[in-house]
């Protein structure tokens, strides 16, 4: 591994690749990308020791926009790929990024099990309550009455509450951020990376193309009035009753991360033969 101390400090700029994002002008994801690179500079993780893993969707394009190692897999399975990577290579810093459709719909099962497994990952969901890449269909976090071509008049289905689901499933760190506050978001992501176990950061990141109404989020977002708690019951109550725009770290728990087994061989491959021998 590279010795961090032997190097010059890494700046946020060092984590930015030269590739131009495909995002629409005004997309919240630009600022989330910037927050991620700032957060990485805060924790001083060498780019080669960081892997950004994603699935499919607008926000899932993020890995190639960094100078870190990237993994742009299939829709909904980013957490699974990241879990395998982190368990096999525990010394790497693994960030997982994606959207609400990727994480809460097609990848919903992996979200639950990533929370309860508590592998030391940082999961950043850029939630805009819409499928942007396929041009404007309702996602699990979309309001039930939001009108669209695919669901005229709205889905009529209550929206998914990712924070409380994460908490109930065992995530060790739960936070809400807002892309309109890139420095605050960077601070939260840096805390998430430092926190052991599975850290979940839900970033409200507007899609002004398909949800122009989300321009109002700027007015609605506000810092959480109280400090994070390590008591899941208190955190749950707070999350269930807040207005959905409480920004900050809402829960920071003490659960032990998923144990990384093995590593050191106790016997040789040839030793395994003994049990078959007659």
């Amino acid at each position, binding site marked *: 591994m590279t010795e961090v101390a032997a190097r010059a400090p890494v700046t946020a700029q060092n984590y930015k690749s030269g590739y131009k994002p495909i995002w629409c002008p005004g997309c919240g994801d630009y600022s989330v990308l910037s927050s991620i690179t700032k957060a990485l500079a805060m924790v001083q993780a060498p780019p*080669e020791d960081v892997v950004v893993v994603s699935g499919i969707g607008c926000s899932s394009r993020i890995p190639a926009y960094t100078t870190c190692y990237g993994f742009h*897999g299939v829709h909904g399975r980013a957490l699974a*790929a990241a879990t395998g990577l982190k368990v096999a*290579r525990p010394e790497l810093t693994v960030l997982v990024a994606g959207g609400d459709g990727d994480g809460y719909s097609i990848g919903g*099962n992996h979200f639950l099990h990533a929370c309860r497994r508590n592998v030391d990952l940082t999961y950043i969901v850029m939630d805009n309550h819409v499928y942007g890449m396929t041009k404007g269909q309702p996602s699990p976090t979309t309001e039930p009455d939001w009108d669209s071509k695919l669901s005229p008049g709205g889905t009529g289905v209550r929206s998914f509450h990712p924070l409380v689901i994460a908490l109930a499933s065992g995530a060790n760190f739960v936070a809400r951020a807002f892309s309109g506050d890139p420095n605050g978001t960077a601070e939260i992501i840096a805390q998430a990376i430092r926190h052991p176990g599975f850290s979940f950061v839900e970033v409200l990141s507007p899609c002004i193309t398909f949800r122009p109404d989300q321009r109002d989020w700027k007015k609605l977002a506000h810092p959480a009035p109280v400090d994070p708690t390590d008591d899941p019951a208190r955190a749950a109550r707070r999350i269930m009753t807040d207005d959905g725009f409480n920004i900050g770290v809402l829960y920071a728990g003490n659960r032990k991360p998923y144990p990384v087994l*093995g590593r050191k061989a106790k*016997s040789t491959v040839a030793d*395994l*033969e003994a049990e*078959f021998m007659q």
Partner: protein
Amino acid sequence: MDAKVSRKAPLQRTAASVSIALAGSGGSGVMTAGTLLLSAAAKAGLYGLMVRTSGPQIRGGEAAALVRLGEAPMHGLDDRFDVLLAIDWQNVNRFADEIPLAASSVMIGDPDEGEAPEVFRNAGARYFPLPLKKTAKGIAGSWTNMVALGLAGALAGISEEALAAALRDTWKRSEEALAANLAAVHAGVVAAAGIDGVPRLGTSAKTAGRRWLISGNEAAGYGAIRGGVRFVAAYPITPATELLEWMAPALTQVGGTLLQAEDELASINMIIGASYGGVPSLTATAGPGLALMTEGIGLAVSAEVPIVVVDVMRGGPSTGIPAKTEQSDLSFAVSGLSGDAPRLVLAPTSIADCLATTQWAVELAEALQAPAIVLSDQFMGQSRAIIDRPADVAFIGKRQTVAANTPDYKRYRNTESGISPMAIPGTPGIAYTADGLEHTEAGIPSSQSRDHVTQLDKRHRKLAQHDYGRFWADIEGDGDAAVITFGSTTAAVREAVARAAREGVTVRLIAIRLLAPAQPEQLAAALEGVGQVLVIEQNHSAQLYRYLRSMYDLPGKPASFHRPGPLPLRPRELTEAIVGWRTA
């Protein structure tokens, strides 16, 4: 590549063997009795095979251990059973087709458990009612299946000492339980004295070489570890679970990890993630799991991440027949991905070969940065056999990686071989993004025609140009006609080829180990001087036959013999098929 592989012994003549079916309701202990019988046979210097079969219930359904013992290695089942020993008759009639009896066979059952089913009595086998349960009850702390073990062992000609030694290995902790069950085994041995007409095997003390008692699932797991696999993620599924249960502690021993995933979508992506991180990785599943994994396997093709997927095939489609065998995932394995997606498909040709073939799959996947699917099946996976210690093979997973700060590094560089050295996370100056989107040589998403064609050609070329050596198939015997098969049916075909030879019909046997990519030149060489081929396989739609006809130029008018599972292909029906085909 020229790994050291022992040539197959010349055509195995059918050895004198005795076949014993131990049947009863699930939980009656027939599998334990069968396993101990096999272990005792090994101690007596014999070879043997135990095939497991059970009804759809997990507990309480019907179960049978189908054991064949002999003085030479046993790879497949015989045409009929010499002994059917039923601990009880609950639903055992459902095994009528799986346990064929002859007039010379012996049937043993407990009269207190009711009459022997008509389907068995109709075979004309002699029936010996014995009070198994009462006998066991008379020995405090003993079990009925141990009485059955004593009976079966004695009928096969295995010494009581060998049976006792097998028991001692099992009950190491409780002297009391051991003593009770030794007494039960003894009672069984005594009872066997009243039964005649079973061909007993010689117990001439053989200078047994180093022998193994192993299942195909264990052999595949061990082959994977020998090849270098250190990460496994998987979801439990019959009949692959034992492979995972064997690997979990074994991986810990050698510094690896097994992770139980939430589903097969997770397990395939987890192993892709781990392998992207540089650690050779594997998952094991069966048909329904493979179906869920196809999107992930496609990602491994596109992102060029080496992985090994062991498919322990069972009856399909859909949930199918979970605990019984069939070779019906072949078409799916060779062609079941979206897009043009070159992949490796291999099939072990015996229980022992599950080791070498899986080990080879790791080597190929790592060398070629591609997914390798290993088609085992329930017959090989869940069967246990006494085998000669397999010759060591030199296959080892070794992928081309790239050094730190290599100038102008491109992850998907269009090299001559098609293999592009891989950057491993943690290595400075060469970071890239692996992608399931079509990409440029640098790995940047691209929907341009020239990038697509370049990468399609590259991914095809690296598999097509590789020299797979002579391990691609087992080729045995001579003759101007050839029988082509794959997987677990190889054993029965080999036995049938030997029997046909005794009837004056000589044919070559070609058991294909590397199914994809197809090896037309290799097969053409193997078929030199052959005018006719017969393709034998265990599925309903002649999948191998159709695959071969689409990928190869076969001489003459290719013929097909195919039948679905779960009944094993029997040497007799195959002998008839081969002789009939050659003399028609």
